[in-house]
Structure formats: C-alpha cells, structure tokens
C-alpha cells in the first residue's frame, strides 16, 4: 500500500534524524505528531520498529504526556492556558466565546476535524495573558477581536506561518534589574576564567558566593558540583532544568529568550568543572517558540569556539549542548522525573537516594540545575564569589528573579536582592489593593496581608519565583480550586496518596466552594492534606495540599462563608434546586450559588 509505505518512510526519516536513539523517543514522537496532528496506533508501532524498542514502551510514553495525542485531534489544536492569572484576565469568557464562534464544544474536536479547543496548565505567559497555545506555539494577549481573526484564519485553513506575527509576540517585561540582568556579560568570559584559574578556583568562588539552587529547593550549588565532580566515572552530564512548570513562573522563559548565552555559558562552565562533555537543556513544551532561536545561539557559540570541540582553542575542553523538549508534564520538572524523560521514558520520579549527582542521566553522575542557577554561576566565575555574596541575607546570597502577575499594574520580571519584603515588591509592581499572595506557585504558600512584612529568602519565604497577586475583589477560593485542578491534572499517578488524594482534595474543595460543605469537610481537608504532605513519593504530591492548608489558616473567613448555614438547616435545599438552572446557563461562578446567609434571609417570614 502506497500510503502505509510513505508513513513508514516518514517515520524512518524522523527516527534517523535522531540517530535512531531511544533516548530521543519523546522528541521523535513530538515530530511524528507534528506531521500527522496526532499519533495513530500504526505510527507508534512504526516508531517502535524503527527504534528497535517494544511497542509497549512507545505507548507508555505516548499516553503520559498531555501534548501527545493518541486520539484524533484537529489540524489546529488550540489550548487555553488555565492558570488562575489567565482566568483573572478573562480567559474563561474568551474560551466560551471562541467555542461559540467556532460552533463547537469545549474539550472537543470539531466534527470536520479542522480544530480542537481545550485547556492546559499555565503556559508561562501570566504577564501577557490571557494566553493559549496553537499547535504548541504561544499566543499572547488574547481578546475578542484577536479571537475573531483567529476564527477566520482557522476556517480559511490559513497555515500558522501566515498568521499575524503579533499574535505570537512574547515580550520580556523586565521591570527591575540587579546584578544578574543589569550588568553586561562578555560571552566567553566565564570560560576564560575557568581556563585561566582552573576548576578548583572556580569552585572556591562558588562556595564563597553561597549560591543556592534557584529552582526553589535551594540546595547549595557548589556542594552539588563538588559532589558530582568527585563522583566516580568518566562520563558525566550537565542538565539545565528549563521545565518551568510552576504556574505563575516565567523568569526562565525570559532568561532563555534574552540571556541564552549566559545560561549556556554557565552550563559549559559546569561541564568543565565537573568533567562533563555533554549537556542538555530540558525545555518545557510550552516554550516551543524559543527552539529555533536557541539552536541558532548554540550554532553561533560553536562557530566562535565557545562550544563543541576545543573550546577557546583548548583541545582538552570539549562540551556540547542538546535541547530536549518536554510535552506537557509538570512532574518532569522534578529532577529525577526530568532525567527519566530525557532518557526517552515517561516521567515518573525515581527512588532517591541515589541522587543524580552520582546516578543521573543513564545512571551517570549528573548535575541538574535551574536556568537561573547556571546564569548566576557564569557571573560568579567572572565577578567572584564575594561580589555575589555582598547582596542578599545571611543564608540567601545574591538576587532572585520574581515573576509578578495577577492584580498589579506592572506585571513582569523583578530582580531583587534576597531579603526584600513582600510589601516592597507589591509597591514596586503597583499592587495597591492586595488581599493575598500565592508565593512560589500552587506548591508554595498563600500569604495574607498580615504577612506582607515577611522577607523573600530561604530563611523566611523561599520561592522559585512565582508571585501571584489577588486583590480585594477576588475570591481566594477561586484560586485554591484552580490549583487543586492543576494537581489532579499533573499527578503522575505513581503513588497512592497523590494519585487518589489530589482528586479527593479537589472534590472536597469544590464541595465547599459551591456551598455544599460543612465544618467537617474543612477538618477532612486538613487531615487529607497532612497525609499527602508526608506520604507522597515526590515533591509534587507533598506540596499539592499547601494552598488548601495555608488558606484554611490565613483566610478562614473565605472558607467559613461558604459553609452551609450551621445555624439553620433548611429542609428544602434551594441551592440544589438551582442546579438545573446553573447547568442550563453554564454558570459555575460563586454568584450562581446561594450562601448560607441568603438562605437565612430567604427563610425569614
């Protein structure tokens, strides 16, 4: 059959382009899907055959990542970013509007197979939302006029390459720069420093700098590099974690867009220090739009002798960097799941110990660091550890990039020395009326106005960078409910308390939020949350209940006013009676539910 032989041919070519390596499986599947819009069963079998792996392995991967489809999908695949910050900017209304204009339901593919519309976890465009992805490419600043034009482009089958460029424009919005973003960096300076002074001297500077991992956990970077350098083995790897899946975080996107050289330089430096010759950037699928520019930067660095063989003319200095794309899985930001994904597998976190510094990629010693950590390391190699350590607090040296979004006048990237107060940040970004902040994303902490004098640093409020502002007009529980959905969607499903617990938590929160909960449900949420915090296998499940538990402490009134009237229990459930009306009108906002107070008043003679 001609058709199936071209299919086989296409797939063979894609597999060959990836050197027939099974570690490239996820990359291969992404490309196969780009070709066919989804992954029909026969393509999976062909990939398995061409790679020489079992079809079952290929299916496991295909069914794990949310951007891979094992069911037919539209030629245009539109996914709205469903972070709470997108919702604050009106994304739900726009989603309904688009589906109406396209004459289709949400989360479906239109009957003609031309277009699918759904939602996805935060796409990292919180400062320029509402945002979406079309065939994996970021769309920003959506509004009705823009959607009207998109409807026309879809219905006229206009190729993406002919869509207006401004739809895809991603701006950096750097609002405050300090030592990382503000000072000029000469490409190659850190590599010259390590060649001149040697790896030990650079490690000494790293120790002096006090640099801690900027991905959120804050592990001392020097200790990680030293441990990997000392680990037995000739083959070692450097991995840059650019998965940036924490809703509300987008600082790594800005670094990769505007400061890629600095990040690559930090990785190359690390390679020299630990004795690795290969590095990987694990770039989240949502940042697909950056790929060509990043590849061009890598090429340019090779051409000018900053990457590849004989770096800076030293035949003993070899290092190269490859970019791996993720495909919609927050858990792959966890370093051991990330390594599994890099190896071409589905992203389930490994049992630790052993840790990546001794058993990482392909079981070889591996340093995994965040994008910002590598950028800071490159600067430290040039400017010295003391220079870096002159900023910040006793336990948190240097600066931190914050991603500001939500209810503020100037969302974007703010670089502050560690130790800055929440209040100062709020003033700078023009958040006049803040009720609460979700710090460090849904996995982090929700703080109320009483705590705005707390400081952002590892001693007090640790953060990977997400900072979402809720003003007085917001219902905090809208955010909490959104986060519980996020964790249900992103749990990898490996361990019981996360796989089941995230769903139980979502259901409890929904029950209370829609006015059907009692005090016992609040206690139940606390109990479930405590189990998840200690029982889950990885950080995802351990932190998933944080926003619920924090808000129970910080915003008890937000919860209490949703409880069924405890003073008066009506025999006739008005809320339940309204359910049909809500369904018919598609309303699920708090205003569509009666509160205990309304019920009391309604019941008065």
């Amino acid at each position, binding site marked *: 059959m001609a058709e199936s032989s071209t299919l086989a041919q296409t797939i063979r070519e894609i597999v060959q382009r990836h050197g027939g390596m099974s570690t490239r499986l996820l990359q291969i599947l992404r490309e196969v899907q780009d070709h066919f819009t989804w992954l029909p069963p026969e393509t999976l079998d062909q990939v398995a055959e061409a790679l020489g792996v079992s079809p*079952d392995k290929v299916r496991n991967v295909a069914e794990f990542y949310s951007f891979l489809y094992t069911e037919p999908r539209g030629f245009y695949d539109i996914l709205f970013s469903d972070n709470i910050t997108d919702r604050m900017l009106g994304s739900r209304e726009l989603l309904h509007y688009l589906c109406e204009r396209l004459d289709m339901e949400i989360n479906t593919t239109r009957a003609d197979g031309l277009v699918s519309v759904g939602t996805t976890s935060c796409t990292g465009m919180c400062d320029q939302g509402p945002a979406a992805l079309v065939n994996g490419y970021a769309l920003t600043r959506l509004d009705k006029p823009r959607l009207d034009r998109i409807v026309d482009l879809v219905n006229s089958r206009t190729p993406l390459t002919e869509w207006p460029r401004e739809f895809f424009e991603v701006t950096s919005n750097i609002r405050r720069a300090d030592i990382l973003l503000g000072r000029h960096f000469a490409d190659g300076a850190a590599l010259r420093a390590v060649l001149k002074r040697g790896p030990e001297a650079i490690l000494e500077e790293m120790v002096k700098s006090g640099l801690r991992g900027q991905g959120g956990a804050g592990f001392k970077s020097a200790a990680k590099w030293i441990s990997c350098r000392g680990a037995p083995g000739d083959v070692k790897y450097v991995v840059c974690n650019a998965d940036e899946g924490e809703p509300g975080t987008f600082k790594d996107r800005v670094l990769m867009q505007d400061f890629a050289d600095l990040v690559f330089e930090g990785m190359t430096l690390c390679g020299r220090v630990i004795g690795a010759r290969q590095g990987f950037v694990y770039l989240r699928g949502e940042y697909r739009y950056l790929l060509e520019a990043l590849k061009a930067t890598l090429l340019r660095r090779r051409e000018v002798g900053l990457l590849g063989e004989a770096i800076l003319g030293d035949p003993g200095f070899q290092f190269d960097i490859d970019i791996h794309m993720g495909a919609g899985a927050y858990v792959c930001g966890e370093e051991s799941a990330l390594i599994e994904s890099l190896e071409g597998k589905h992203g389930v976190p490994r049992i630790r110990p052993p840790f990546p510094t001794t058993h990482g990629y392909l079981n070889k010693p591996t340093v995994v660091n965040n994008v910002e950590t590598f950028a800071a390391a490159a600067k430290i190699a040039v400017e010295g550890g003391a220079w870096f350590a002159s900023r910040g607090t006793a336990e948190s040296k240097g600066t931190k990039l914050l991603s500001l979004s939500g209810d503020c006048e100037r969302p974007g990237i703010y670089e502050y020395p560690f130790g800055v107060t929440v209040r100062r940040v709020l003033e700078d970004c023009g958040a006049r009326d803040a009720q609460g902040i979700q710090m460090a994303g849904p996995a982090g902490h929700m703080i109320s106005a009483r705590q705005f004098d707390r400081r952002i640093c590892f001693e007090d409020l640790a953060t990977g960078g997400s900072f979402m502002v809720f003003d007085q007009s917001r219902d905090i529980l809208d955010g909490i409910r959104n986060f519980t959905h996020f964790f249900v969607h992103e749990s990898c499903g490996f361990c019981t308390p996360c796989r089941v617990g995230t769903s*139980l938590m979502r*259901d409890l929160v929904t029950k209370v939020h829609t006015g059907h909960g009692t005090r016992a449900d609040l206690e139940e949420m606390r109990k479930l949350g405590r189990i998840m915090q200690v029982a889950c296998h990885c950080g995802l499940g351990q932190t998933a209940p944080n926003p619920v538990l924090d808000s129970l402490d910080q915003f008890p009134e937000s919860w209490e006013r949703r409880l069924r009237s405890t003073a008066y229990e009506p025999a006739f459930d008005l809320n339940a009676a309204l359910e049909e009306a809500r369904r018919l009108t598609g309303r699920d906002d708090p205003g569509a539910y009666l509160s205990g107070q309304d019920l009391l008043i309604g019941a008065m003679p």
Partner: protein
Amino acid sequence: MSEQPSFTLDGRRIPFRDGQTVMAAALAAGVYIPHLCFNPEFAPHGSCRVCLVKVNGRVQAACTTPAAAGQLVQSEIEELREIRRGILQMLFVEGNHVCPACEKSGACQLQAVAYYVGMLAPHYTHFYPRRSVDASHPEAVIDFNRCILCELCVRASREVDGKNIFAVRGRGINARLVVNTPSGKLGATDFSVGDKAAQVCPTGAILLKHHGYEIPIGQRLYDRKPINVVGDVAQLSESRGGRRHD
C-alpha cells in the same frame, strides 16, 4: 569479628546487612511492617506508600529507605496507623472492591492489611470507576476493578517470566493496568498459570479459573490469624493457603 550493624525498630534491635532496606531487614528479623507493593523477591517499588515508617523523626517508605546503623525507626504508632488507614481507604475508593462478592476474600493481602491498620470503612466518597473484567484467557481472569496498581504482575512478567504481558499506562488518576496486546485481552497472550505473574497479585485482580471457593469462607488464610502473623499470601505455598508454587 565486628558486631553486625543494627538499627532500632519500635524499641527492638534489628541487625542488617549492607545494602538492605529497613523493610528487608525487619522482615528478615521477623518484624512485620505493613506493605502492598513490596515483595521480597523484587526490587522495591515505593508506590503504595503503606509501609511508611518514621526514620529519625521523618516519615519515609520502609521499603525504599536504606538501613543505617543507629537509625531510630518507629512503625506501630498511632500517627502512622492513621496515615496508613488513610492510604488504604484511598485504595478502596479508587477501585471497586466488593469484598463479599470476591473470590479472594479472606486470602486477600489488601483486605488483610486494611484489617491490620484498623480500617473499618472506606470513609471517602467512592469514585466508582468504570472498569472491566477480562475472562478471555482459558485459565485466568483479570478483574481490573480490583487492581491497586502495585505493578507486581508487571514486574514479575517482565523480570521473571520474560514475557512483558502487563503494563501501567496513562497519567494521574487515569493510570490503569493494561495487557500488552493490540486487543488488550489476556487470552491473546502466552500468560500461563505457572507464571510468576499469576502468583504475586496482592488483591483479587488476577484470579485463576477452576479454583473458586475451594476453601470455604471462614477458614481462609486471614480469617483466623492476622497478616502480621501469617505473612503475605504471595509468599506462602499453596499447601498453606498461599499462592506460591513450589
């Protein structure tokens, strides 16, 4: 000869060999720590989280935590029993476990561990997932309603039988056990009752045909003695009411 290193488990001294986990060492010393995805014949998996213990004050899975000299391990404390109960309850509401209608009842490790940790009711709201039963194989039935995703059959088939018949597929709450054939039917595989994979299931998800109710209810493995005394059904020979072929 130097003395063998040891740790303390609920006040008892537990000796261990280098490389052993807390679970393996406890088991070797005859001390029971409840577990489901752990089976001493396989590498630890760490997914069910039933075996949680406190190691120097931190909650960790006993089956994946390397034993170390001087560790202070707590297991039978109310705090942990409550967590374990919660996890068992999650497993019971996630699937469809109708014990009175299950052939395995009384010789089921899941049920026995639930009793052991003092679980009286499932507590949480049932998910009632729609799952199927596969009776296509002449000698065995798979009831997916009872699968707790411990992956023991997956590991046994892959590592011992060399057949790779089972897999867990999908993400999050959509994760599910599948049979690795295009039809997804066990009957289309070379699965056989002699396989290790036929002996390891801690629930009634994989049952052998033609063996229904051979031992009457009330006289089954865990009907009279609890699991910490009897041991795992998968580790006992058939003559002792277990599942293991000798």
